């Protein structure tokens, strides 16, 4: 099946819709912020039965949020009127935190999660505290509340915080 030409408005509408779907484990991030949407193909426009395929990729192989995310995408597009919605998953190329949008990183910080920082490919002391901005911090645990995070604590404001690992 070959993708039919769709006007950009409809595709843009789909992306706008995807931007309203959030990671259930980090609800401040949309799936677009997270960079896990790899492709959106309009196979038949909404006016003509509506057939769409969305390709997503997992952050970590065992990420338990993937099934929920796929379901949320499907529901949103069906509700919008598409008759056929396919969710494809891909593992190559492997997801990296570089795919997270700059806006996403800023949202994470506001939410209280230190965004991935290239200078700290390995979680370590010195990651900037999202609460007070101090870099006088220490690593409490390499693993945090989800597979993608580590746990740190700020030595200045004493607040423990999550760090989104570089991956």
């Amino acid at each position, binding site marked *: 099946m070959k993708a039919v030409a769709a006007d950009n408005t409809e595709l843009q509408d789909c992306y706008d819709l995807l931007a309203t779907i959030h990671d259930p484990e980090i609800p401040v991030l949309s799936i677009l912020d997270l960079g896990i949407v790899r492709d959106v193909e309009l196979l038949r426009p909404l006016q003509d039965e509506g057939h769409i395929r969305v390709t997503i990729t997992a952050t970590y*192989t065992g*990420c338990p949020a993937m099934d929920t995310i796929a379901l949320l995408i499907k529901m949103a597009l069906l509700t919008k009127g598409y008759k056929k919605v396919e969710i494809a998953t891909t*593992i190559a190329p492997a997801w990296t935190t570089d795919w997270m949008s700059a806006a996403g990183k800023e949202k994470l910080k506001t939410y209280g999660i230190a965004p991935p920082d290239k200078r700290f490919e390995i979680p370590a002391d010195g990651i900037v505290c999202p609460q007070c901005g101090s870099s006088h911090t220490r690593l409490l*645990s390499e693993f945090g509340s989800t597979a993608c995070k580590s746990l740190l604590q700020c030595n200045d404001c004493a607040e423990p915080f999550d760090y989104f690992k570089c991956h």
Partner: protein
Amino acid sequence: MTNASLIDFTLYVADSTLVLAQRNGDWCGHGPVLEQDIAITNVTLDLIGQSRSFYQYAAQLIGNDCTEDQLAYWRNEREFKNALLCERPNGDWAQTILRQTFFSFYQRELFMQLLQAADTTLSAIAEKSLKEVRYHCRWSSEWVCRLGDGTEESHRRLQVAVENLWPYTGELFIAAPYETALQIDTDTIKRNWLEALSTLFAAATLPAPSLTDTFMQTGGKTGQHTEALGYLLAELQYVQRSFPGCEW
């Protein structure tokens, strides 16, 4: 390379990661401190994710509507190809950590080779998984150092763990027919694994490891297991066997 070899190899990696995940999962709620409870279960989650990727690929290769669940829940112990190391009991924290270290170090070397594999699905899964495996290597190595170079008690426990697990390491480096078919270079894996482990053991004040002075157990890769696996699978597969196809 035949399709059968590719399926067998894919199942070998899938089974090994699943069985180790099942073992590690027993620590959930029982870790020595909260952070380490979370750590070992996160490692477990990664292993399950890797295992699913390999099972899904095997199911696709087998065809006939085969699914990852059928492969995980409806095969008996003689059909499981996991490395014997993965099925060894948890023992204490030292034994669990050491088993993870041995396996993660091995996985790192094996997956590095898969990056070059002619089969692009295998190389893609390997590339994805390597990021997780490297993290596991670092976390478990730190624990080996902490225990080995810690108190008299922790050192003794780690030493006992080495004695318990060492006879199950040799098998990793003896190529099964399906590995030979896929041109997996077990000699290189063995050399790099031993070198990395020697450095770690020195830091942990443990005697240098040697693969030549111990009788090594074999058979896991071709379905001959220790008694431990049957019990593990009985628990792992119980629900699906009792209520086929059940979902929640």
